């Protein structure tokens, strides 16, 4: 219902701004009807499914890589004080660097292909993941670790049985953040250097001055982002919150 109202306002703005007052041109401000017609035709002619599949493949590979690397780096920082002192500021700095800045390097190293984009995605979300792991593990209730130690946990078993599960809530939110970074990196990468994928379809829309297509792809990106968030992370988070009793406010 809320979204219907939003679309109605959009349509109204279009009518007033483009049809009556003629202060905007139709090619800079699309009407919702045009956008949904374009969206439908993109779905029907198969462009959309090809684009979504291509993008999904890239982001899955890139995101998985970043999780693996992020976990390794995060654990290493937690485990070794020397790395913590020296590497943490660097990681924080790299985290603030938009991952698209890596694209020139990436193209030089890998060429204009899948690997270049996957590299950008991985770089984009690895640091968010490792920072989340680091802060999650550092901020667990020290009582958990003390209790586990008196029961004979040490070394690996302490990490596996206590520290990792105890920091899971913050790790999940870090992974979630990593996902959104990966998603942004993917779009940026595709817009600049891909031959298929959502970002590329968006750029085609720009090149053909088809603002409806640009808008349609933007909507698809947002919907996919929300869907993954709700279906994957939302479920995991809800499960953890219920177990821990964090919902009882």
């Amino acid at each position, binding site marked *: 219902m809320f979204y219907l109202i939003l679309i109605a306002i959009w349509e109204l703005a279009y009518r007033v701004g483009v049809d009556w007052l003629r202060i905007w041109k139709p090619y800079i401000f699309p009407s919702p009807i045009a956008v949904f017609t374009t969206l439908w035709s993109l779905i029907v002619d198969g462009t959309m499914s090809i684009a979504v599949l291509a993008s999904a493949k890239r982001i899955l590979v890139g995101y998985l890589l970043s999780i693996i690397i992020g976990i390794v780096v995060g654990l290493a920082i937690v485990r070794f004080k020397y790395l913590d002192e020296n590497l943490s500021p660097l990681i924080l700095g790299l985290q603030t660097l938009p991952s698209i800045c890596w694209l020139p390097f990436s193209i030089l190293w890998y060429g204009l292909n899948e690997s270049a984009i996957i590299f950008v995605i991985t770089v984009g979300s690895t640091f968010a993941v490792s920072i989340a792991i680091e802060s999650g593990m550092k901020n667990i209730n020290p*009582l*958990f670790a*003390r*209790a*586990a*130690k*008196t*029961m*004979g*946990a*040490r070394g690996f*078993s302490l990490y596996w*049985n*206590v520290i990792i*599960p*105890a920091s*899971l809530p913050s790790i999940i939110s870090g992974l979630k953040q990593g996902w959104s970074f990966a998603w942004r990196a993917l779009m940026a990468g595709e817009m600049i250097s891909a031959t298929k994928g959502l970002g590329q379809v968006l750029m085609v829309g720009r090149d053909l001055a088809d603002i409806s297509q640009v808008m349609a792809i933007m909507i698809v990106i947002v919907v996919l982002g929300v869907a993954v968030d709700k279906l994957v992370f939302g479920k995991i988070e809800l499960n*953890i919150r219920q*177990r*821990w*009793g964090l919902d*009882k406010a």
Partner: protein
Amino acid sequence: MSVLVENVSKSFITKNDRINTLNNINVEFHKGEFVCILGPSGCGKSTLLNIIAGLETATTGRVVCNGKEVKGAGPDRVVMFQEPALFPWLKVIDNVEFGMKLAGIPKEERRAKATKYLQMVHLTRFQNCYIHELSGGMRQRVALARALTLDSEILLMDEPFAALDSQTKNILQLELQQIWLETKKNIIFVTHNVEEAVLLADRVIVMSANPGAIKKEFHIQLARPRQPENIDLAYLAADIMKELKEEVEKVAKAEFDTNWTSKKDIVLSDSDSNMGTGI
């Protein structure tokens, strides 16, 4: 199996000061003995317990447990903390099994044992609950069951009932007494509650503050199981309270403003008005 604390001192160095928390503690805990360490807040009794547990290291001196010097925490000296320290990501039964899982005991065996100890603390009905679904007293029972499963001969308890309401506390004290009678573990129990100490202990060690040292020992030779209403307990408690009162006032003086004076009986009322105590 006994625990021997030899010349243990602990000091913290702050920016411009050196704080002696514990000063030359010598004490022995015997097999099967229930000892309460009693003292005012800030006297270092929890620090002493942590040193015995191996969670903190002594500045000087050493702790010898069963002929071996204590180097770190271990399952032969399980600790029960003031907070239950249960893991919220595990069900009650898995929490109880946790220590045994670390020890590598096979699944069926540890399930059977966990059920047995849950029965002992009357919580089998809740074995599939998560921790947040339990009340404070129930959580502390689960923690007790978890501590018992490791079959350590030594059980260290750091004010385990201090955060509970008084009814729950009473019930748990009596249950702990019963469990101790059944298992005959060596329990070292830190508390600031005189009645609790007298009810539970064979021996009460009163500590003084600043620096923490052992002030006096009391042997409680009353028949078990003891009831909190028992009048003999009240006499003994009054005796120990006298000893403690001085220390409590000392701590209060150190912590409060300098204009705080200990007016007679302001901290703890003296039991002399009972006429007959300590005669």
